């Protein structure tokens, strides 16, 4: 378990905007994995991701989407929505 920096009085969080510091990816048991050459830069997965855990693709630069595993909770919606089978779910290895 991670070490608490400080157990504040009444669990007050004194620094605003600190939610980014809390990495929620560890909740995951399955994770989506991208086969880059299959990505058509359509960004449908990016639109559907409920956790903003996908960086959008750049069609002009031929840059595929990227999954941010610090926050991806492995819901599989991106895999379900991808029309090109570019994403598949695999078991998380720790």
């Amino acid at each position, binding site marked *: *378990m*991670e070490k*608490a920096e400080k*157990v*504040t*009085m*009444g*669990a*007050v*969080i*004194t*620094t*605003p905007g*600190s939610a980014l510091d809390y990495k929620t990816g560890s909740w995951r048991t399955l994770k989506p994995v991208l086969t880059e050459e299959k990505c058509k830069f359509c960004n449908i997965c990016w639109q559907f991701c409920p956790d903003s855990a996908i960086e959008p693709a750049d069609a002009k630069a031929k840059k595929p989407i990227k999954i941010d595993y610090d926050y991806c909770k492995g819901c599989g919606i991106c895999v379900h929505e991808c029309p090109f089978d570019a994403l598949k779910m695999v078991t998380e290895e720790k």
Partner: protein
Amino acid sequence: MGVKQVVKGNFATAVAAKLARVDVVPAYPITPSTLFPEQISTYIANGEMDAELLLTESEHSAMSAAIGASASGARVVTATASQGLKLMSEMLFIASGMRLPIVTAVGNRALSAPINIWCDHQDTIAERDSGCLQFYAENNQDALDLMVIAFRVSENHRVLLPSLVGLDAFVLTHTMEGVDVPLQEEVDSFLPPYKPVYRLDVKNPMTFGSFSTPAHYTEFKYQQWNAMKNAEKVIDEVFSEFYNKFGRKHKKVNEYRTDDADIIFLTMGSMSGTARASIDALREKGIKAGAAKLTVFRPFPFDEVKKLSGKTKILAVLDRNISFGFGGAVFSEVAGALVNEKEKPILIDFILGLGGRDVTQEDFYKMADLSETAIEKGGPDDMVNWINLNDAEVQ
């Protein structure tokens, strides 16, 4: 010196709130505490009090509003009883976990069913584990004093926990008694303005009521545990300061004729006066009885109860509450406090005074009989004894 006034218990708690210069009073009326928000409303209408009275749609909302107001750094008070305290229950645990020093006057009243509006300690006893300090008044002077004391203790940075101040339904809430009402400047010099550690402030944003995973939750509970432990010492300090300022001595456990006692009756609330009168009568009959009044139930006064137990052959605990399947809650706490003591007296539990049934001197004589029998036999026939059941057939 204050001004002597003849007042009801609800007035005593309301005037204490006024003297404490509270900022916010979120309230929902319930018998027998309704006179509290009525009195606050009168004070505000008369311009005698500069506070915000929030009339909410339920007790749950009243305590929720109290939490928000307290988190903003305001001094907050409310009053409730019985079912109202039950509706607040969820929020009491949150007020304690968020370390907010809200003070609530509770007109101790029985719980439904069957519905009953009279005196009983079940409502606050059922909040035993909420993380609130618990004080019990014997009379209206106690009710006033303990409210003022509760703010000082709750707001101490070593404590920062909410307080419940119990006063017996009708026996105190609606009964006129002579009370010394302190002067404003006396209370001001005893109770400085509340200084929060953290406060809700748009200019300095913080998160209150945050989420905690298994990684930290235990430490937050340990923090509350420490705060309640600290309260043991802080209460003694504040009682002592209160005595120096106002000349009235409050103790966690008040003893009466206990030094050579064979039987000690441990009481809470208004029956403590009846206990002392009964002790005098029993002494005249040659029975060496003494009494002790528990003013502070949370934090539980372990040391004082241990000391008391060393003075007697039998410690009789009077419970105006019942935990079905065990016995009285005060009895179980006393038994727990003494469990590792090598020398301890016989312990016996008496359940009485539920739903407003009077606790009388006759009850004390009956309990003295049962206690003497238990001493002769080296232990009680029954650990838990119901006193003054009437002769109705119980289905």
